[in-house]
């Protein structure tokens, strides 16, 4: 497997009136192509901060972060956006679909913004997540689980190299969560997309090939699950 990204002694410190808060305190790891990584940890452990740094939403205050052998831009909003546009897919906890656009249009919009508009592929992706019958419906007209599947289809529509998700099933019941994760695993496999998800739900470990546990801004364990082929 090829190495996709590498973090070395990554730090994200915040200056607060109460002193310096070390959200990430010397994180180092590598992620290889095709891996499905789950970041587990209690609330305030730094997992979301790590995800933000991975997606170049946030700039680390120390350490190195390289992606495909190149340093990831930091402290430059436009370059960071460009990095995300070219490499990253993102799934939110609350789906964040645009309510004025239909299911299909939500996907087309992202393709259009990345200059990769392809309605055939958009429809294929919806088929992949089992929503081919809902293409012309508005997000407000479908269930939460369906909306999250649309969000997954949207996030991979532009063929990102790395797919990130923050508590993407946190707002769903167990049965729906499983359906969403299955759709996600299936899509990642088919599209050969590496993924990293933040969760505190141990039940999702079965969908990962690797689990990294974090606490107080440090990695406390990094294990392969043996689920190389997923569920």
């Amino acid at each position: 497997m090829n190495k996709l990204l590498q973090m070395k002694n990554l730090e994200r410190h915040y200056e607060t009136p109460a002193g310096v808060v070390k959200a990430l305190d010397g994180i180092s790891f590598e992620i290889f192509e095709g891996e499905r990584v789950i970041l587990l940890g209690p609330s305030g452990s730094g997992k979301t901060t790590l995800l933000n740094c991975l997606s170049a939403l946030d700039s680390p205050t120390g350490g190195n972060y390289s992606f495909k052998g190149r340093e990831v831009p930091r402290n430059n909003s436009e370059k960071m956006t460009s990095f995300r546009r070219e490499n990253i897919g993102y799934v939110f906890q609350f789906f964040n679909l645009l309510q004025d656009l239909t299911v299909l249009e939500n996907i087309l919009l992202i393709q259009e913004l990345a200059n990769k508009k392809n309605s055939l592929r958009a429809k294929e992706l919806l088929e992949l997540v089992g929503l081919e019958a809902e293409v012309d419906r508005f997000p407000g007209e479908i269930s939460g689980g369906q909306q999250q599947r649309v969000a997954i289809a949207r996030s991979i529509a532009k063929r990102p190299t790395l797919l990130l998700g923050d508590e993407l099933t946190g707002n769903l019941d167990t049965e729906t969560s499983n359906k969403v994760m299955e759709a996600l695993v299936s899509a990642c496999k088919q599209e050969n997309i590496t993924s990293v998800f933040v969760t505190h739900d141990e039940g999702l470990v079965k969908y990962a090939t690797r689990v990294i546990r974090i606490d107080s801004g440090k990695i406390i364990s990094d294990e392969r699950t043996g689920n190389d082929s997923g569920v």
Partner: protein
Amino acid sequence: MSALLNKRLARSLMRTKIRLFAVILMVFVGVFAGITFGGYAHNLGSMYDTMQADDERGANLADIWIDNRSTKWTPEQVDTFCNTLGAAWDNSSISFALDSCEGRTVTQGAMFHSNDTGDYIINSLWHGIPEDANADRIWMPVGYSEGRTAVAEDEIVIDAHVTDALNLNLGDTVSIGAGNTTADFIIVGMGYHPLHVLMAPEGSLFPPEPGQYVVGYLSDAGMARLTGDEIGTSNTIILDLEGSPSFDLPDTQKYEGEEINVAKQLVDSSLNSTEMNGRIRDRGQNEPVEVMRQDLEGTKRTTVPFTVMIASIAAITIVLSLQRLVQSQAKEIAVLRTLGVERSSLMTGYLVAPLVIGGIGSVFGALAGPYGMNGMLDFYQDFAGVPIIERTVPNSVYVTVIGLTMFVVFLSGAFPAWKASRLDPLSVLSGQNEIRVGSNRLRKLTSWMPTTLGLSIRSSVRKPIRLSMTFVAVGISLMLFGSIQMMTVGLQDTMIGSLEDDQTWDAQVYISPDSEGPVVDWAEDNSAHYEMIIEMPIGSVADSDDIERSFTLVGLDSFRNGMRSVSVIEGGTPVANATVTQVIMDEGSIKFLRWNIGDRHTVSIDGVERDVEIIGVSAGELARTMYFVRDDLSKILGVNATSIYIELPDGIEVDSTLGEASIGIVERHSLLDGINSLLDQQTEFLQSMMYLGLLFTLVVMFNTMIMNVAERDFELATLRVLGASTRSLGTMLLFESILIGFIGGIVGVIFAFGGAALLSASFSSWQFFIPVKIVPSVSFQIIGIVLLIAVCMVPVGVWRLRRMDLVEKVKDLSQ
């Protein structure tokens, strides 16, 4: 609890300082304008009341005038008429007494004035006022006029409007004429006259440049000396009645002239029985008086709508801002509701906030209002040339203006307050209130477009009520801006257009009946082209409500190729000697009388009924005018010409020979200068209101665009996280701005045209008609301005995008 909630709301509002300042500014302007207009109208009204009053301080404006400029009544004729009328009055059932019946001469003439720059013949009007006159006296307010009235035969009072411009002082001698001889008079006073508040020549509504038209008040003996007639010879009889009998107001649909009409009928029969002919007019038909009354009434009428308009713009902005606040505080409100806070406690703040905002704006507006009023009164004093002595703002004006403003502003808090109190905590906390289903119709309409474009359109119209309110506010703002501009263009076209483009004469020389010979000789001696015209304000007709409407008769030799072309917008031009006399009527008359081309009507010409056929409709006349072929009109009136147009060859100027042969000369360039200067003054005044409208448009659009961007934080942050570049999102915002700007511009044009039509309707009367049309240049300007404002807001959105803290936003998006 409620106090803490209100404090919390106040803090939230303070976070939007610019918006808060803008709303307070709007309320301030609304109250300021209301008090300015209200106080102005009040004091102007007082000035007229004082001037026209029948007491020692006033000039006692007459109630009825009988005049005939083409005749001279002997003192015996006047006495006979007055006695006949008095007897008839005593035998009638009229409830008010006839206080006085006085004859006097009012005649056009010229002043021969010399100064360092040369010799001038100034068009003039001379009144012969007996020492013991009861009505239409000279108004000489203490401290604002000089000297005394003329008593001796060589004394004159010059109207105070022109003394400064001509550098005339008490004791100076002036040479004047009235088509007879030139005589010298000593200035013994400077004062005003209620018929000459508007210092415009008879038959015109435009005051020329100061010093280019003179009105003087002689004694009856002085007038006899000037005209060579016996003392007491008259062409005008003035009647003063007990009290102020109601007369018809030409600008209303209702007929209010019942009272005075009875008196006028008696006057008419007395004229007939004494075999005298003349035009009988009451105050409503006396143009110089009526125009000023309508101007005052117009100002009074403007106060309330103007205040409400501005207060409404402020109210809409407050509604939108508070509504947005409720939306952004929905979660907090839901939490408070869950914790058991009562609805009324929540509502209080939203109801009180607009009152506080309105209160602050009102206090400043009330403090500044008197300054605005004084500014307007100063402007009027300069413009009309009469002193406005009393300057107070009545309490009723304060109460009305502030009360109205506070009421409108209070209403603006009611809706957001109600919305806040009705928020369902469960729905808000579960995020259900955020879920909405897009419009399928909109989807179908925009499905063919690129998705970004479709999203822009859908986002723009996502909140139709808010958008509509924005457009209404923009529309009202642009009503102030555009309607004034459209009306100004219409006014300019009417006032200047025909005089500048359709007329080629250089001088209009007024003559006494059958006295054209010397003027024609002068023209031929100087190789000047000339053209005789008849122009007399002696036509009248009863309209569909049986109200008598007066108009000017104009007789021309040529309608298309003469020195005064008529702009015929419909129909053709009259031919002479038709079985029924053919005429052209101006578009204002046609509109008011609801006449059509081809109609035949009976009109009164110099008191005699005559049938005419309407052949064409003309444009470009402020005053109501009926055009005849001069030959036809000459046969009807028995007058060849009342004035002569002259085209002066190069190097030839109007001289004293021509002046002595005439009873007054008007030069076209002076007339144009006067009108242009009047328009400039008006424009200067109106421009302040126009720019106010523009400022409001800016504030309203700014508010909406900022809210649009703020409201789309969720959507823009999502797209940003997903990798959308600033440029692509900026393009989306730009398109959205263009769309809103374009629609706003069109709404603005519609409102501006509507406003111009309303303004024109409120200003237009039988005496003064302003046509309104959609002026393309103004329309494009309005659309362009709104578009520009909308597009200028894009960088604000982009700036907001750039400084968006995505980490914080993602946190928000995950909550």
